[in-house]
């Protein structure tokens, strides 16, 4: 298993380098210019100078190489410095956002907490709701509960968040006044009251996101349970005289969770990636909003870095899903 993991990790490096190159070329081809924000009154020659200051004057391969160095060599040093208080990175040029003229990673780090709070919680809540629903739907296949569950998850799947988000805002903030419609990213949880406030402001975005997540995961859970409920070992367990609860919640569930757990692991990168539309609707200003903002402002270093981080996460969690599968299912042996 360890060899497998290491092998996959090593193989991932060229893949990731290739991915980063493709992203880079893609962004180069994309329309948009970082000087878009600068008004027309600035003469072209000044703009040209500004571009040069951003490193845009250099040929493409040099810029790509610079980004690689900055991202893989300097940024880790900054991280080490931040943790141990050393100063390896002093004076080195970090990956700088064109939009804010500040290091990209600092902004990313700033955005992670709110993304995790909202999207992460939604993912968690979604899973926690989805699993029991999936189990029960499968156990009572074609019952009214199952039918309703299918129906609701299909609706949940088909309602775009820009609509459901506004709908809950109108209902819960405007009409009922229960929750704030705008997420306060500066809010800090220090005591119980502030925790309650935090919960209040999280409820709606979490609700909207969790609806979609629940819809998907519960379908998976149901299918997986159905696959296992008819297996011979279930009959064996019953023949042993075990109670229904034990049979379903221990024997069947454990087996059914294996594929679901890996599906869940595969979804984790999307937490870090944020939920672009939901973040926008509730003004959560997490990673998703950062990405879309950067794209709109043609902030290439930011977009490049963010998408590359996503790529790393996706590759990493693919691996984690595989390893989890191997760990959970004793039949699977890598090597």
């Amino acid at each position, binding site marked *: 298993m360890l060899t497998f993991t290491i092998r996959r990790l090593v193989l991932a490096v060229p*893949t990731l380098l*290739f*991915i980063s190159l*493709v*992203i880079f070329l*893609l*962004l180069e*081809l*994309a*329309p*948009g210019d970082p000087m878009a924000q600068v008004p027309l009154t600035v003469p072209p020659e000044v703009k040209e100078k500004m571009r040069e200051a951003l490193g845009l004057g250099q040929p493409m391969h040099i810029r790509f190489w610079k980004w690689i160095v900055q991202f893989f060599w300097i940024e880790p040093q900054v991280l080490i410095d931040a943790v141990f208080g050393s100063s390896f990175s002093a004076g080195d040029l970090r990956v700088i956002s064109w939009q804010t003229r500040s290091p990209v990673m600092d902004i990313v780090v700033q955005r992670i907490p709110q993304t995790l709070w909202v999207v992460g919680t939604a993912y968690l809540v979604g899973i926690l709701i989805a699993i029991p629903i999936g189990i029960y739907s499968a156990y009572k296949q074609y019952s009214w509960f199952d039918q309703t569950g*299918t*129906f609701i998850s*299909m*609706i949940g*799947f*088909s*309602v*775009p968040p*820009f*609509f459901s988000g*506004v*709908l809950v805002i*109108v209902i819960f903030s*405007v009409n009922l006044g229960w929750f704030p419609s705008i997420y306060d990213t500066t809010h800090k949880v220090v005591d119980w009251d502030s925790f309650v406030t935090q919960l209040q402001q999280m409820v709606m975005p979490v609700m909207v996101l969790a609806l979609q997540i629940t819809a998907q995961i519960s379908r*998976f859970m149901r*299918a*997986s349970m*159905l*696959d296992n409920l*008819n*297996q011979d070992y279930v009959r064996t367990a019953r023949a042993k005289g075990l109670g229904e609860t034990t049979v379903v919640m221990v024997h069947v569930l454990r087996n059914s969770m294996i*594929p679901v757990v890996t599906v869940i692991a595969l979804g984790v990168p999307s937490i870090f990636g944020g939920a*672009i*539309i939901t973040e926008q609707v509730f003004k959560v200003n997490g990673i998703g909003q950062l*990405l*879309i903002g950067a*794209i709109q402002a043609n902030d290439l270093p930011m*977009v490049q870095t*963010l*998408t590359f981080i*996503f*790529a790393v996460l*996706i*590759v990493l969690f*693919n691996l984690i899903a595989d390893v989890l599968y191997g760990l959970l299912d004793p039949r699977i042996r890598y090597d």
Partner: protein
Amino acid sequence: MTDKDRFVPDEGLAPASTALPGGAGPLEEFTKPPSNQWREVWDQFKNHKGALYGGILFLVIVLWVYLGPVIWTIDATHIDIRARNQGPGFSHPFGTDQLGRDTFARMMAGGRTSVSVGITAMLLALGLGSFVGVMAGFFKRLDGPLMRLTDLFLALPLLPLLLVMMLLFRDPLNSAFGPEQGIFILIVVAIGVTSWMPTARIVRGDVLALKEREFVLAARSIGTTNTKMILRHILPNVLSPIMVSATLGIATAIITESALSFLGLGFPPDFPTWGRLLFDATDYLQQYPERVFWPGLAISLTVLSVNYLGDGLRDALDPRIRGR
């Protein structure tokens, strides 16, 4: 997660004793006459209640959006400014919008685009996904590169990709197909190209498993070439996961299109789609709630009907289940 190893009690269907004395002679005939394959598919499909209703509903929606304008002749872009912001009434069954355009007509026009986008984008994604999946699963040498390609596409951000595509292809497409067709092709391709990966993975997994099945070996021993092997033996047997992807694909394509509208990358403003109608109407959620209701309902109904339709089709296309 396919149902390929779902418990199918096929033994006992034709007791072996039919060949024994006491039975009706050595080779008893089945009472059921051998029938046309498509007839059987239809018979099974008919008996699947959800599928039948889903299918009918989907058909109704498709007919409504494509043939409806023949009956309801008001032009979806016609502005009748005096009649704006009307509620449902006799002359405008779904009311009118802020410019006095007939919502009913706009729903049909929007549905035409949405349904076409859904179906074509799904077909494209499916075609790509199945192709990559089959190739990767079947040819060991291609497996690594193709799966890395899949990773790459999974990791690519959709938005810049779209912007690049818009930049590179919009003008050529516009001049070749006209502006509406051009953007239609662009959006369909964009959605298709960014959503084939899950299908590819599932298909690959199934193909890998199928390759180990004895009938593939048997086919090889009777001299079946690779191409024929894929066409005759592999593809029909991965049809059911593909069908599932297909039904989900239509739904996701319709929803993705609406998200593109939200981000301002979708169709032009006078080109209604359900996603855009819904998006435009959310601003008026409080004043005119019925405006969000219609497109919302249409999207949900389509997604639902397609889902049930897919369930039924999958069962109907699998001769093992069909025989039950």
